[in-house]
């Protein structure tokens, strides 16, 4: 519900509780206390000055690929669509 954005970690501060992140050329210092494993180059999700999570690049690729497959489907049938991650069975 709350505004949050993926931004790239540019550098960690000493002590490792804060980081400078970059979003399209804009840089801002944020807290990474909630994502202690974040490292330079990682994309974190920033909310009210705190990273609250991280982007999984492979999953992002998968999701985008899914969108891409739609093109292939356009003229075809809908049945063959790969099922996305399902965490509970039906």
């Amino acid at each position, binding site marked *: *519900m*709350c*505004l949050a*954005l993926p*931004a790239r970690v540019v550098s960690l501060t000493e002590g490792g509780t804060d980081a400078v992140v970059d*979003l*399209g*050329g*804009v*840089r*801002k*210092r944020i807290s990474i206390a909630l994502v202690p494993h974040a490292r330079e180059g990682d994309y974190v999700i*920033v*909310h*009210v000055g705190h990273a609250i999570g991280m982007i999984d690049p492979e999953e992002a690729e998968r999701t985008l690929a899914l969108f891409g497959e739609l093109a292939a489907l356009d003229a075809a049938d809908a049945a063959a669509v790969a099922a996305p991650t399902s965490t509970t069975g039906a």
Partner: protein
Amino acid sequence: MSTIKKDYVRPLNVKTGRVDMNHGAGGRASTQLIEEIFLPAFDNPFLRQGHDGAALPLPAAGRLVVATDAHVISPLFFPGGDIGCLSVHGTVNDVAMNGAMPLYLTASFILEEGFPLADLKRIADSMGAAAREAGVAIVTGDTKVVEQGKGDGVFISTTGVGVAAPGVDTCGANARPGDVVLVSGTVGEHGVAVLSQRESLAFETAIVSDTAALNGLVAALLAALPGREGDLHVLRDPTRGGLATTLNEIARQSGVGMLLQEADIPVLPQVDAACELLGLDPLYVANEGKLVCICAPDVADAVLAAMRAHPRGVGAARIGTVTEDPHRFVQMATRLGGRRVVDWLSGEQLPRIC
């Protein structure tokens, strides 16, 4: 022989001195402030008359245009400008948006006790430089000092006087269905540059304010339409409230709607990014060196070409059309392919967390 020593005034200490209540009391200290800071910065023969006002040659023909703006920005110095040049551009542009050539400015200062004289001098010099660049003379002014805690450093109200050639009428009520909506460049830089300096937001960006005088650009647009100046229906600078609010004002005054193409509205990538970060919409962010032009469709290409040929309009774009709409909605076809209203700014354009 007289033993009276010659008039001597110890020069203002512009290095470490501060404005105090005496500088606003109207006595010798007030005069000194004016003579050592404002006169050299603005110097021109009208101001040197030293009257409580200025007597000026009357323009030959056309309509007299006056516009005024109060400037209360914080911080006073920001990337790309300061309250001094801003207070010149803000009013010069309002005069220019009336299709007029700005000639004269007046300046009224409300200083807060304790304001550093060095900052005041820097601001005055910036005003003077901006006025010279825009070709206007700051011909008269007034300075008051308020106690600490009753002001915010410096407030500057400027009033501009100019003259519009016969046949030119660019007021907000002139938009007609079918007209083309143009903007002279990328939007949102000024507001983002200012916000980037607010202590509590503090982000780093290369964005600088677009603050600039637009009278040259307006003159170029009019010059591009010899004999058809009347086809330039509306000019307006999208300052406070941004492009969205300005277009809504025009729609309301003209009794029309608009349909914008989101994909055609020029926004710098860094401005887009900063707006994402702050939860802002660049369409509502202030500009100080851009104009919106609404013109008849058959001159739109000529106007756009004239804009792009001028240094202040290189990023100009056609962004939409005027529609017939009794509800006077400004609508937008989104980049995504959807559609939505682009409403007036509601409340303040504040960073949003949710």
